């Protein structure tokens, strides 16, 4: 049975450091090398060119439209806001409940275009940069053990759906030579 120190020596040796292993240490190192070599063949799972091509297409689209994703999230948020406003209008019944205050009169539900326009007005580049920075930070640097808040997971799912909708439904045209 090897102890922690011996395991550490084996690890350093397998990582390429000049460590002289003895007895059971050498045996364990050989065992690991052999098992990894055996598994290597079984692990191969090749991606078809079509799968790599689709991933490349998403990447190129992101290069061409770096802010598209955030604008799409903005669109989704605007649609949700408009829907909520309509719902409030439908559910609101003037005079249903007695109130000492005069009821607030809603003139009209905001149209989708007006909500979107308002959103676009407020969506300045600096703010996009800040949001983008936060997203990047979460994506690349956040400790993986930390649980993501449900809202962020939902945003991620919406992003994925939008990408799938946008990029996977492109018609393919024959290339004429």
């Amino acid at each position: 049975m090897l102890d922690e120190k011996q395991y550490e020596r084996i690890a350093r040796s397998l990582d390429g450091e000049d460590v002289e292993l003895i007895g059971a240490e050498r045996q364990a190192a050989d065992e690991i090398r052999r098992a990894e070599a055996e598994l290597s063949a079984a692990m191969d799972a090749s991606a078809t060119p079509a799968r790599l091509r689709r991933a490349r297409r998403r990447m190129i689209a992101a290069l061409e439209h770096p802010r598209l994703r955030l604008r799409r999230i903005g669109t989704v948020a605007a649609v949700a806001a408009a829907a909520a406003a309509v719902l409030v209008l439908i559910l609101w019944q003037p005079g249903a409940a007695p109130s000492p205050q005069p009821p607030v009169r809603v003139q009209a539900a905001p149209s989708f275009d007006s909500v979107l326009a308002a959103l676009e007005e407020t969506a300045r580049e600096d703010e996009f940069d800040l949001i983008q920075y936060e997203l990047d930070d979460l994506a690349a640097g956040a400790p993986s053990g930390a649980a993501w808040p449900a809202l962020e997971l939902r945003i991620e799912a919406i992003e994925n759906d939008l990408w799938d909708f946008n990029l996977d439904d492109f018609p393919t045209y024959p290339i004429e030579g």
Partner: protein
Amino acid sequence: MEDRRLSAMIASAKAGQADGYEALMEAFGSRLYGYFFRATRSHHDAEDLLGELMLRLVRTLKDYDERGRFEQWLFRVAANMVRDRIRRIKARVAPVSLSAERESGETLADRIPDRSRPADAAMMAQEAAQGLDEALDKLDTVTREMVLLRHYGQMSFKELSELFDCPLGTALARVHRGLKMLRRLMGAEDKDA
């Protein structure tokens, strides 16, 4: 891969040139796909994760510190994505009864392949691959990830110990135990005997 060539690819990509990203995809795409596939057991998820990773690369490459090893950084991002995906799937999964009937009267159990049917070569190959997948499933999550990252990410034990925040000896002990278990589950030890 030659360091100078990799540095050129990274510099080109950081400059926002599509060629640089394409070269990185060419160099690492297949291995990343393999890692995603083994970690999720789904070609669909692997493709989806690879696409998502390339998007993240576009957004985050500027933050990559070139003093570190690029491959380790890339697979660290990939490992985090796999963990997020698994967590999300676990949150969604609902139990399904094998005997519950669909509208057609068919049950889920009816759709499971009959093991008594004669096997052809493709089926045998598929079963071998399934054997590996099932054996990997028997490992605990951290050990499985370490074994996969050793192979696909070509991570050293030192890099694994940093990524999983554990002592160097512990990282090696986990991989050693995991490999032994895989060999046993896949029948390799029987062949040796």
